[in-house]
């Protein structure tokens, strides 16, 4: 496997400078904090609302920013220039995803603090959110690679936002419409279920199935993003 930390670092530093100077995209870090502040609560619905804030933030921050960073590189032909350097496919994808991962992790940690959510099983919470960030980064990569322009990429996030964020809420109709049960397997529904279970004191073993489903989504979408990257950026 051809991976170089120096090359990954060079891409992260470059992306950070680009991100910090692109206010249209960097402003997105404020939305999770704003939502966490608006919906903060300590009542019976705390876990449900916290899950909504996290799922919304993952789509609106992680996927959106990643999609825009990838689409902009495509639009300006800089991704092709990167590919002609010794940077391997993994260097580029890891480098480009690392910045979004770090920013998402930091903003979601701050959002969690702002929201006032607390749990005794912090390890499971961190694992679930960490895997979800990977998953939503892959979704952003896929949307970015499918889009020809930055505008197309920003619009492509809306279906993701609607399905993944609203999916868990649609489960209230599952008794009337059995096909809605399929939404239970969405990563956002699994995260929501996990957070609700955490609130009533579920053990780590009881939450393994949720973590496995989220992980499977992350693995499948990451593989798809890698395959798509290779396919989209070569003229074969």
């Amino acid at each position, binding site marked *: 496997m*051809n991976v*170089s930390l*120096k*090359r990954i*670092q*060079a*891409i992260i*530093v*470059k992306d950070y*400078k*680009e991100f910090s*100077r*692109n206010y249209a995209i960097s402003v997105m870090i404020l939305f999770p904090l704003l939502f966490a502040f608006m919906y903060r609560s300590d009542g019976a619905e705390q876990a449900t609302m916290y899950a909504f804030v996290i799922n919304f933030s993952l789509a609106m921050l992680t996927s959106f920013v990643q999609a825009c960073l990838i689409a902009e*590189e495509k639009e*300006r*032909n*800089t*991704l*092709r*220039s*990167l*590919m*002609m*350097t*010794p*940077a*391997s496919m993994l260097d580029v994808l890891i480098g480009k995803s690392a910045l979004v991962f770090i920013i998402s992790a930091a903003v979601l940690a701050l959002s969690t603090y702002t929201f006032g959510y607390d749990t005794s099983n912090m390890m499971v919470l961190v694992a679930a959110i960490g895997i979800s960030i990977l998953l939503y980064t892959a979704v952003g990569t896929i949307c970015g690679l499918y889009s020809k322009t930055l505008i197309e990429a920003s619009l492509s996030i809306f279906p993701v936002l609607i399905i993944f964020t609203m999916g868990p809420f649609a489960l209230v109709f599952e008794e009337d419409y059995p096909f809605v049960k399929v939404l239970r397997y969405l990563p956002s529904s699994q995260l929501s279920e996990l957070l609700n279970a955490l609130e009533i004191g579920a053990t780590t073993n009881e939450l393994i199935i949720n973590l496995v489903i989220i992980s499977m989504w992350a693995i499948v979408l990451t593989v798809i993003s890698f395959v798509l990257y290779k396919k989209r950026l*070569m*003229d*074969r």
Partner: protein
Amino acid sequence: MNTISVQNIQKSFAGKPALKDVSFDIPKGEIFGFLGPSGSGKTTLLKILTAQLDPTSGSATVLDKPAKLMQKTDQKRRFGILTDNSGLYERLTIEENLELFRGLYDLPKSSIDKVLNFVNLTADRKKRISVLSKGMRQRVTLACAIIHEPEMLFLDEPTSALDPVNTAHIHKGLRYLNENGTTIFLTTHDMTEAETLCERVAILHKGEIRAIGAPAELKKTHRDGTLTVELTSGQSERLPMNENSATQVANWMSQGQIDRIYTNELSLGDIFIKLTGSELV
């Protein structure tokens, strides 16, 4: 020793041929020009040589390795590429763009100073790409392509839409690189560029090589065998190069009537039109 060897390359897109049985060699240290109008297959060939595209049939070696291996990290260190759509990061400065490439090639910090000096942009290193002129951007793109001092340089229309001053600047830099051992493969539709820069050129038309050789050789091959004599009276005579003409010229000369005398050679552009029957645009 050849840096590039192309054997019977064919490429079709949806059954439509883009390259037809293209073969040629480029020795180490040569500046080789690929001439042809837009859509003649120049960029397709460049993409095949840099493993961005697979040929339908035929083979090519670049730097002693099959061209399909040019996307391997070790091979990518050995060549540089500048295309008409090579991108730069608009929000970053010239120096920050080069810093990225320095990191990707794992080069010392001094490589940035060296390449900036080479493209004459040292004083502008802190300027953002978004404020640069087209000529300056092209020089930054060239700097990104050569920062690692490649053995082989691929250039796709390097001076298209540049003013004469910037073009001259880039030509000077390319000659310097070539003198220091870099083999250069250049595609262009600019005849002057081909003539002043390239040791050999290939004329490509509708995916086929119609002629290949040094510009002077091509001109010699395609000259029309006439000479023009301009007389002091303002009259101009076009004569075939034979014994009768020699006598006539000698007479004019003895009477001091000759103002100018020259052989009629076709320009590369004329040769292109003669060979392909179409204009080079």
